[in-house]
Each structure stands twice: as structure tokens, then as C-alpha cells.
């Protein structure tokens, strides 16, 4: 499974971690809905740590899309909401 951390790059994570990552990702989604900044921050940190520890960097020559795209650690809830609110906000 390919996971991108915004501002950091893509990681290839073994399939046996997918369940755990999806669970964390769901919690992250719930935290955003609930406007729960504390849970959001700690869950995001867990997710980022897991991806960095268990993932291998995708080489630059591989042009692949990601299954999950994670904001970086200092992203605020407001920034996440802006990103979700309007797909036109993704530049490029």
C-alpha cells in the first residue's frame, strides 16, 4: 500500500499493516468531524510514526498514486477542513 505524507513523500507499507493504518485513519476522520483537535493531533502523530517506521520510501522514478494521503504533523484542523472543503484547493 502506497501512503503519501504531504511535504515528505511517498512510502510503501507492507500489506499486513493496512488494517491498523485504516483503523487509525478512521479515528482521524472521526476526530475531524468532531472538531477534536487533541485526538486529531495524537492520532495523526501515531499514523505518521507507523508509516515512517514500517514504510519504505518510494523511489523518485516510480510515478504511482497513493492509497492514503496524510497531512504533515503540524497541520491544523482548519487547514484539513480547507483541504476537504473544496477539491479545487489542491493546487498543481
Amino acid at each position, binding site marked *: 500500500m502506497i501512503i503519501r505524507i504531504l511535504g515528505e513523500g511517498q512510502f510503501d507499507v507492507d500489506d499486513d499493516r493496512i488494517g491498523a493504518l485504516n483503523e487509525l485513519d478512521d479515528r482521524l476522520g472521526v476526530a475531524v468531524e468532531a472538531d477534536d483537535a487533541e485526538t486529531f493531533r495524537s492520532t495523526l502523530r501515531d499514523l505518521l510514526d507507523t508509516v515512517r517506521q514500517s514504510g519504505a520510501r518510494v523511489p523518485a522514478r516510480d510515478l504511482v498514486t497513493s492509497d492514503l*494521503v496524510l497531512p504533515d504533523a503540524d497541520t491544523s484542523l482548519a487547514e484539513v477542513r480547507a483541504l476537504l472543503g473544496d477539491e479545487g484547493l489542491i493546487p*498543481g
Partner: protein
Amino acid sequence: MGLARRIALLFRVKANKALDSAEDPREVLDYSYQRQTEMLAKVRRGMADVATSRKRLELQSVQLRQSADRLREQAAEAVRIGQDGLAREALTRREAALVQLQDLVPQREALKSEEDKLVVAQQRLQARVEAFRTRKETVKATYTAAEAQSRIGEAVSGISEEMGDVGLAMQRAEDKTAQMRARGEALDELMASGALEDASLPAGRDDIQAALEAVKGSDTDIDRELAELKGQAGPPPALEPGDAGASESRREPES
């Protein structure tokens, strides 16, 4: 749905729009490549902008540090000649300069961090664009519709995601830079107002220094000259409103 999955979908929707818009998928390759090189140029400009703002903050730090040092010397000087009020004023201003100086530290760090991120993003995008260019040429050379379609889709989606990522980093850097620029300008104004002492005045003069010198030397050259002038001159020339108006109207228009 999880958050990261939603964001990934947003990126994909965006990439698919680009793919769907062209009749011949090979057009997408060229169009996308053009966008990529534009994006690279934009990121480089962005890096330069952030660096400029950071350097400005560093320059302001140096100026504030000089102000603080000078104000301490002035305070010491004032104490030596028994002017405690003046010393207090100098120390108060020094305190204000130091507060501003402290405030610049996190700002500078924030800009440096954005700058570093952009440098890394730029390198990553550069490598990907290079990979894309190679892929583009291969696909065009061996074009058979069905095969190319999927390979083009893959390459374009992959690079499109990268561009979106870099684009977001750019936006954040631009926002930060704009904030810092506004604060930098406010600080420049504060420094220019003399509230933190303006050490950049041509002769290095300021009101505290003037007050110190006025108290200190009664037999300095300036005082002697002043006394001489007073002795020579008659009454000072009057500046009547009428005269001022007349001289105003005679003045050449400024170009």
C-alpha cells in the same frame, strides 16, 4: 471514511479530470509535462521569496541587537553623569528592543522551516519530472492505444499527486511569508519611529544621545560655535506665514 483516504481520493479526482479532458491521451503527457516545468519554476521563485523574507528578519535582528547595545551604553553614560531619568528611558527602550528581538526568533525559525520544506519538495519534484519526461518519451515511441492509455494514466496521476503536494507546500510557504512580511513592515515602522532608538540615522544621533551631550559638554566645539553665532547674529530672521507662502509658490514643481 478515513481522512487520509478522502484526501487521496481528492488528489485522484483532480488527476482524472486532466486525463479526461484530452482526446488523445498523448496530449495529456505533453500538457502535464508543461505544467510540471511551470510548477518547478514557481517553486524556485517561492524559495527565493521565503529566503528574502528570512534575510530581512535577520537584518532586523542585527539592527535591534545594535540598538540594544547602544542603548545600554547610553544608559551607562547617563548613570555616570548622574542622569537617572535618561538612563531609565534608555533602559526602557532597550527592553522594548529586546522584546522585539525575542519575537523574531520563532518567526525566523518558521520561515527557515518553510524554506527547507520547499527545497526538499523542489528536489523531489525535480526527480519526478525527470522520470516523467523519460516515461513520456517511451510511451510516445511505443504507442499502442490500449497499452498507452493505462501507462499514461498511471504516470499522469502519479505526477499530478506530487504536484498537488508541492503546490500545498507552496501555498503554506506563501501564507507564512505574507504574514512575516506584514509583521516585518510593522517592525520597520516601529524602528523608524525611534521608539526602539534608530541606530541607522546617518550621524548615529538620537534624542537620548542629544540629551546626554547637552548635559555633558558645556565647552564642546558645538557649544562654542553656538555661542559665537549668538554673539554675531542680530535677532533671528522671522518666519512669517506670508513669507512661507510666497516661497512656496516660487518653488519649482518637483518632477
